[in-house]
């Protein structure tokens, strides 16, 4: 047990300030435990979101010493014993109170995305899909919607272009649908024109903060950009792909990939 100082931002949409709290920290505690301890003893009305306390629900995102993190998965012993720990709400979304922000914009983006549309021959029947064909899709589906990637993406955070770009979380949702073996919907024009795939310039900040270790940039965003490029700069390859089966589709993709790399650089 050791006593430590935790500095927490308290306030609402009209402004606020940092308040220091002294807490006894026990073995194994995570930052969220410490916040709960303060809440129970010294600040009953301290607002914080959480549910699972096990890194599974994505509710407890905040910025801890400047790093966007899940507070339930951040152990206190990651910090030096005498280090001041400063906790504040994520920056990209409007503050409701203390550590809680208004993330409703994300829910609006999700609603704009066309859901899975099973191909005519698969609708109503058991899907036959090989594990290797869904590995990638499953990687994206690990997303717990913590919105840490949305929080760090500079297009949303610094440029505040929420009207132009859906952000990395929804780029992987789109990628997961586009790569789904039995999906028949076409989202490519919308991805370019409405969801703003061109806004991303592959800084990889989103990938760095993802608590689920999803390869957002390399595995989802770049391939999606490639598909956009294919469609608008090489429509023939696209038609061939649309008309051929899954195996040929992968082959065509691989061939096209190298050729597209140059084109891609121009558009980002």
């Amino acid at each position, binding site marked *: 047990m050791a006593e430590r100082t935790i500095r927490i931002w308290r306030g609402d949409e009209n402004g606020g300030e940092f308040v220091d709290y002294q807490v006894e920290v026990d073995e194994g505690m995570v930052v969220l435990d410490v916040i709960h301890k303060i*809440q129970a003893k010294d600040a009953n009305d301290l607002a914080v*979101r959480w549910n699972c306390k096990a890194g599974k629900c994505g509710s407890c995102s905040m910025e801890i010493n400047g790093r966007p993190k899940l507070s339930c998965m951040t152990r206190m012993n990651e910090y030096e014993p005498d280090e001041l720990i400063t906790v504040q709400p994520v920056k990209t979304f409007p503050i409701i109170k203390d550590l809680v922000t208004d*993330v409703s914009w994300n829910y609006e983006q999700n609603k704009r995305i066309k859901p899975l549309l099973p191909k005519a021959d698969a609708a109503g029947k058991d899907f036959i899909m090989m594990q290797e064909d869904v590995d990638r899709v499953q990687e994206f589906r690990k997303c717990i919607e913590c919105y840490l990637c949305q929080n760090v993406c500079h297009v949303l955070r610094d440029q505040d272009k929420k009207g132009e770009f859906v952000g990395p979380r929804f780029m992987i949702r789109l990628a997961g649908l586009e790569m789904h073996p039995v999906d028949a919907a076409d989202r490519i024009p919308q991805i370019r024109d409405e969801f703003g795939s061109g806004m991303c310039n592959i800084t990889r900040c989103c990938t760095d903060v993802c608590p689920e270790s999803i390869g957002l940039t390399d595995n989802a965003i770049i391939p999606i950009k490639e598909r956009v490029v294919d469609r608008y700069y090489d429509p023939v390859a696209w038609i061939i792909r649309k008309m051929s089966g899954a195996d040929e589709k992968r082959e065509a993709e691989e061939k096209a990939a190298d050729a597209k790399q140059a084109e891609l650089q121009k558009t980002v």
Partner: protein
Amino acid sequence: MSNISEIQTIEHDVIVIGAGGAGLRAAIECSKQGLNTGLVCKSLLGKAHTVMAEGGMAAALGNVDPRDNWKVHFRDTMRGGKFLNSWRMAELHARHAPDRVRELEQWGAVFDRTEEGKIRQRNFGGHRYPRLAHVGDRTGLELIRSLQDYGIHQGIHVHMECTVLNLLLDGDRIAGAFAYWREKGRFVIFKAKAVIMATGGAGKAWRITSNSWEYTGDGYAMAYDAGAELVHMEFTQFHPTGMIWPPSVRGILVTEGVRGDGGVLLNKDGKRFMFDYIPERFAPETADTEEEGNRWLAGDKDARRPPELLTRDVVARAITREVKEDRGSPHGGAFLDIASRVPEEAIKKQLPSMYHQFKELAEVDITKQPMEVGPTLHYCMGGIAVDADSQQTRVPGLFACGEAAGRMHGANRLGGNSLSDLIVFGWLSGLGAAEYIKSLSSKPEINPSQVEEARSEAVAPLNRESGENPYLLHEELQTIMNDNVNIVRTKEELETAIEQLEELKKKMQTVKADGASQYNPGWHEALSLHSLITSAEMVTRAALMREESRGAHTRIDFEGEREEWEKVEVIVRKGESGMEVIKQDRPAPPKELADIAYATLEELEGTNG
């Protein structure tokens, strides 16, 4: 705000309270039936408890072992529930689970695949065959996200971070619900012809639990206050494997999938102690040597399953006994070892979130070291009593499904049977509510005095000058339940608990919430005490009445199952002068179902139909 006409009013045909698997599936069905549907939840959409589910959902698809079929699933469920389950609910569940799982795939769920490209299924305790459709160890996330992403395109009105406090009645039938928005602390009246309660359980009444802050038993208490009956409340499931070290993670779940995939339980002497705890009823179907257990794991269809996969009540009691007799692990549990049995890569692929959870929270690498585990309160088998086919309670217009409803799982739930329960009974309750609304000849009206009473009760903790700290009262409740209403129970302890709960109820009358009503967790905590304590009292009183040991309910003063107790169930309801607890006769089982439940496996295998 003094006048209730100033309170915001939102009108729907039906409101579904709770957006876990059960509530989402119910709302989707209501919408498909053409109802104007509202869906209300305490957290953000997609964060409900269902998101935490790990191992899988049980459905007799027969993709991995073609001998599986609904009858074997039904038989396993009844045996796991020690025959107290509603026969009809267990039947509906087993029959419809496969189609509900297939439908999820159409809606976007991407399950792990077999070699042939079908939905892969894994072994779990109490299930005869590999039956759990799954995605690694994050099946709940897949379920909730699939329903959410599909549901948001079905015209459902979602009201997030909104907590329902009371049901509103017109006479004895449903007229709506009274709630508040977390963000602003403002009240709202939902006018509705029917309400579906999908609020989940009450695990937060215990200190060591796998449950989240939402599990305060709101649905149980609201239904109780509105006149519904609750059933089987004495059956609370302690999952045998929760984390026990370090203290701050105590209770967090370690999926049964670890054992399903080959993990074994060891005591401090390195002994696989589960071989010493095989109950007679399961002996013919359980391996009695390590060698046979290993063959089973390797896929030998003639071998029997290892005893680590016995039902949860059996395993939880065995660990408790080992610890009590001084054979436990250093922090008072058992070792769960998968490192020495399964290759590193396979562990990381099959159990990625377990790998992370231990690595980050306990600094244990489960591919190299054993885990330390012990029992944690996990699930309420009991719940709101409903009609097996329509899911309606005895309050007209009030329906319940998911963990909030009772009777489906009897005395003990099998792992994986909850997620499938959510989608089967969520669906049926949607149909039930639509049917009910169609039959209504007049529209229910809100009673203003009921709203006024609810409102003044809700603001009381904010208006008090001083009073009890709500967090500390909650901790007090958790201590009472952990000390007295745990895995093994006695009359003395249960009576002590009831006395202490009475004291706590008095203190609750003077609870004080600091600060204003905007996003104020202290106030929310104060408001949830009523539900928590009511639920705890129901469990305790029901446990005191049931003088036998069956499934998850163990009385050391009444050992073993008693035949007379198989014929009755304990019902809790609100009486004139407080809580009424009664024994009620169960109807005799339909013959066809009894024949299946008591049949031998050979008689049922490969008879899909």
